[in-house]
Each structure stands twice: as structure tokens, then as C-alpha cells.
């Protein structure tokens, strides 16, 4: 058992491909656009185009496809459960029943709903993962800060917000590593996490989550002190060490993304939605 192995979201996979070098603002906007599109897809064909596009990006960025799949693995049980629920519980007038057994019955509408929702979650996760895999934490921060800057006009502390988000992202891996150690420390004292009934199993989580929370708070406090010791006072008046420039490659990548998006939009509009 090794928890951190399956965590790909928030991990940066250093590389020298042109995807890595693209302006973070462009990558964030492209990811945002794709995620927004996902919310409107209600048939299978646009997902085909979507899959084509992100597979191309994954290959261009030199990310092993296997690594993306490893990251999806922990979500599998939840996705399967979700799919079953949609299949059995969703229906709409005029839907055809495909299977019925005892008190359960599944309609074609439920099947489509289950498939489409599952794909939506998978793609959402993959798009975000690709973004963090190819963008270093510093670039991500810089990009987000600039993109959110207009919100400062209405009094939203964007720099602080971004900082918090980035720290949260970093902590995913740190906490997973810590969880790994805590589970081992308690297993060493004979906890059998997989034995007992539901209540007994739930009770066994206390010795794991208590130290995890306490350590998380301690870590947060240490981080605050470390930041203050280096005179961090929030976003006001902070300048950047690196300035971002959009270049030709960014323009081209942007155009390609837009073309694919337009194609997806065209399919969304022309194909009769299944839901």
C-alpha cells in the first residue's frame, strides 16, 4: 500500500516539451474553457473529439498515459457507484426500459446519464491533472494571480486566494505522505483496518485521522511562522521576479485549442442531446 503513488493531481512532472513551456495563463484559460465545455456535453460524439484532443496533449507533453490511468484508479469505486446510481435511479418520461429485475429497473436514459456523468468527471479530473503535471507551482501561481487580478477592483484579495489555493494543492501530497506514515504506525500496533463491522471499521479511523489533523494544524502553524519570518504581509505591493510573455507558440496552441473547442461546440449544438 502506497498512497502517494496514485496521486497525480497537483503533482508537477518536470519536462522540456513545448506544453511545459507554454504561458501558464494560456494553459489555465484553456483548461478553464475545456472544463466549461464539459458541462454542456450531452452526447457521446463531442467526448470523442475531447478524448482525441487531450490524448494529443498528453502525448505532446510526454506524460506516460499509464501515469494518468494510475491517477484515475483511486476514483474508480466512487465512479462505479455513481454510474450504478444513475443507471437505476434516473429516468424520464418516454424512456425505454432495458433491464428490470425485482424492484430495480434501468432505462436507456439512465444508462446514458450514467455514462455521460462518469465521462464528465473523468475528463474534468484529467484536464486539471494535465494542467498541474505540466505547469510548475510557481508558474501556476503567477498565471492565476494575473488572470484573477481584475477581481481586485471589487475588493477580492486575489493574491491571498491564489496563495491559499496553491498551498492547498501542495498539501494534498504532503498530507497523503503523512497519512501513509500514520497508517503504518498504527498498523504496527496491530490495527486491522479491513476487519470488523461498519462501526468497528469507522472507529479504527480515529487513530489515523486524529494525528493527521493535529499534524496538519501544526504544519500550517509552522508555515505561517516561516512565511512571516520572511516578511510575508499579503499580496499588497508584491512584485514578480518573472514576468510572463505570450509568444508565437502560445498563440498557435491557443488557436488549436479554440479550433477543437469550436468543433465540440458545433457537435453540442447540432447533435440531439441524449438527456
Amino acid at each position: 500500500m502506497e498512497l502517494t503513488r496514485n496521486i497525480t493531481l497537483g503533482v508537477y512532472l518536470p519536462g522540456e516539451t513545448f506544453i511545459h513551456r507554454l504561458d501558464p495563463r494560456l494553459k489555465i484559460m484553456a483548461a478553464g474553457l475545456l472544463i466549461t465545455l464539459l458541462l454542456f456535453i450531452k452526447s457521446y460524439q463531442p467526448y470523442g473529439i475531447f478524448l482525441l484532443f487531450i490524448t494529443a496533449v498528453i502525448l505532446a507533453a510526454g506524460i506516460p498515459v499509464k501515469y494518468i490511468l494510475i491517477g484515475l484508479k483511486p476514483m474508480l469505486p466512487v465512479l462505479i457507484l455513481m454510474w450504478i446510481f444513475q443507471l437505476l435511479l434516473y429516468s424520464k418520461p418516454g424512456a425505454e426500459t432495458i433491464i428490470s429485475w425485482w424492484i430495480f429497473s434501468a432505462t436507456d436514459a439512465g444508462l446514458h446519464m450514467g455514462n455521460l456523468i462518469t465521462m464528465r468527471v473523468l475528463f474534468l479530473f484529467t484536464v486539471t491533472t494535465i494542467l498541474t503535471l505540466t505547469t510548475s507551482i510557481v508558474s501556476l501561481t503567477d498565471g492565476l494571480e494575473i488572470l484573477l487580478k481584475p477581481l481586485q477592483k471589487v475588493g477580492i484579495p486575489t493574491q491571498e486566494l491564489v496563495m491559499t489555493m496553491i498551498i492547498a494543492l501542495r498539501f494534498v501530497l504532503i498530507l497523503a505522505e503523512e497519512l501513509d506514515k500514520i497508517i503504518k504506525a498504527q498498523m504496527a500496533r496491530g490495527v486491522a483496518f479491513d476487519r470488523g463491522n461498519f462501526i468497528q471499521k469507522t472507529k479504527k479511523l480515529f487513530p489515523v485521522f486524529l494525528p493527521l489533523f493535529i499534524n496538519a494544524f501544526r504544519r500550517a502553524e509552522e508555515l505561517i511562522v516561516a512565511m512571516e519570518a520572511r516578511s510575508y504581509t499579503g499580496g499588497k505591493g508584491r512584485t514578480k521576479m518573472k514576468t510572463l510573455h505570450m509568444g508565437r507558440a502560445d498563440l498557435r496552441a491557443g488557436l488549436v485549442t479554440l479550433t477543437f473547442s469550436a468543433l465540440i461546440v458545433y457537435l453540442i449544438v447540432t447533435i440531439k442531446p441524449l438527456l
Partner: protein
Amino acid sequence: MPIEVSGLCHSYKKGTPFENKVLHDLSLKIDDGEFVGIIGPTQSGKTTLAQHFNALIIPQKGRVIVNGCDTADRQADLVSLRHQVGYVFQNPDYQLFAPTVGEDIAFGPRNQKLNNHEIEKRVSEAMKQVGLDRDYFYKRDIFALSGGQKRRAAIAGVLACKPQILILDDITAGLDPQGREDILTVVRKLHHEEQITIIFISNSMDEVAGLAGKIVVLDQGQIFIEGLTREVFARADELQAIGLELPEVMDVARKLANKGYRLPTVVLNLEEALDAIASALQEGQVAD
């Protein structure tokens, strides 16, 4: 009931771009009643190896047999194995969770489904073994303890399971000299009085030289040197070549020997050093 490791390999994050090969085809045997020190530079695989001993890590390749139980065997009772082989982590914060010291130490025995009377007995014994005064500490808040006391509570929590083999993973790191000495005294007593097999991972050569009967030196996931403590430290140059330091007393003795004093090249503890230096001075033989 020895520990037998053969052909053990392990990689972290296997199959990902971050794959990190930690152990390569490692074989090792540890007998009952031994006090084995495991040393090696950082990233040499010390902890990974030790976590195989109580099945916290299951072999990816190779075999680990502990007390006759193959840890890779799906039928093996790993929970009972982990009670036989205790593991104390470097950071007690990963282990301590109950509101009071007494309750935390009772956690292991409670998992063994012992009756309350037996649990109480185990807790009292364990607290005595690590030198925590029962009346004072039993109802103490765990987070009010000092670093050294936390370590001792953590060790007690593992001892309460009555292990026959005890793995101590760098348990003196970050302690002040007094706290360090207290812990080492506890460890020494456990080995001598309770005859517990001890596997002692440490970055301090002084500690290992002073305690261990046998030493395993790891480097890059393989055994670099293995042997009796004196034999291992006799190969000082090789140890230094992989970035390990020598015990301080030995370092001093070697420096004196370079100046022409007649001193043995291997000195493991302060007493030995004192004797050797005294007799060298008595002989009064200084070259040139």
C-alpha cells in the same frame, strides 16, 4: 524465530515517472537475541528494509520470512506478526493520538483483544520499562509531553504489545543529549534484561558503535558491509567512502594514532578509548 530476507527488491511509486528503486536484490539474516545496527547514508533503504520485517511493506520481489511466516503469503496472519515485531517510528506524532498517555499505550494491547486486567498490567509494565512514572504520566495529556517523553510514550505503546523483535527507526533524532541518553539506556535494558531482539536504525555512529553487536551497512539499496561491530568499523576507509562518519571516540583515537601514539584503530566507546589512551600514555612511547 529469525528474520530471513532473500532477493528483496523494492521501488516506490512503481510504474510512474517518479519510480524510485530503493532496494536491489538484498539478502540478510537476523538471528534471535541479536542487537543489529542498520546504518547507511540517507536514501540507502534503511527504513524501507526495516518496514519489510513487520510486513508494513510486502515484498514486490524476493521473500521475507519472519518467525517462519512468509509476509507475501496471502494467508499469513500479518496482524499477529506485527504484534511479534514492534516498530517504533522516528516521529512519535505519527503514532500518538489518544487523549492520555495511558490510553495511548493501551491501544496496542486493546487491538490484541486482551482483557482489561491484562491491558492495565501491560501498560504499567511498559511505562516502567521506558521509565515513565505511572502515577504521574498515566492521565497526562499526550500533547503536554516533551519531545523525549513523547518518544518514550511511543516506545511504551509498542512494548505493550510484547514484541519479541523490536525495530527502532532513528528514535533519537532531534533529542537533546539527556533525552538521547535516557532513551538509549531504555534500549540497552530491553536488550539485556528482556532479551528482545533489537534492530536499531540510526544516523549516529556513536550510538550504533556503543550498542550494536552486529552491523549492517546499506548503500544504494544493497548490503555494503555486514558483520560484527568491530569488524565493520575496522573498515573505516570504506565507510567514509560512502559518506558515513566514524564514531567520535574512534575518530579521536585515529587522529592520536596518526600523531604517533600507540592506539588501536578500532575504538567503539568512551571506556575503551580511555583505557587505550591511558595505557598508551603509560608506555610513554611516542614515535620520533
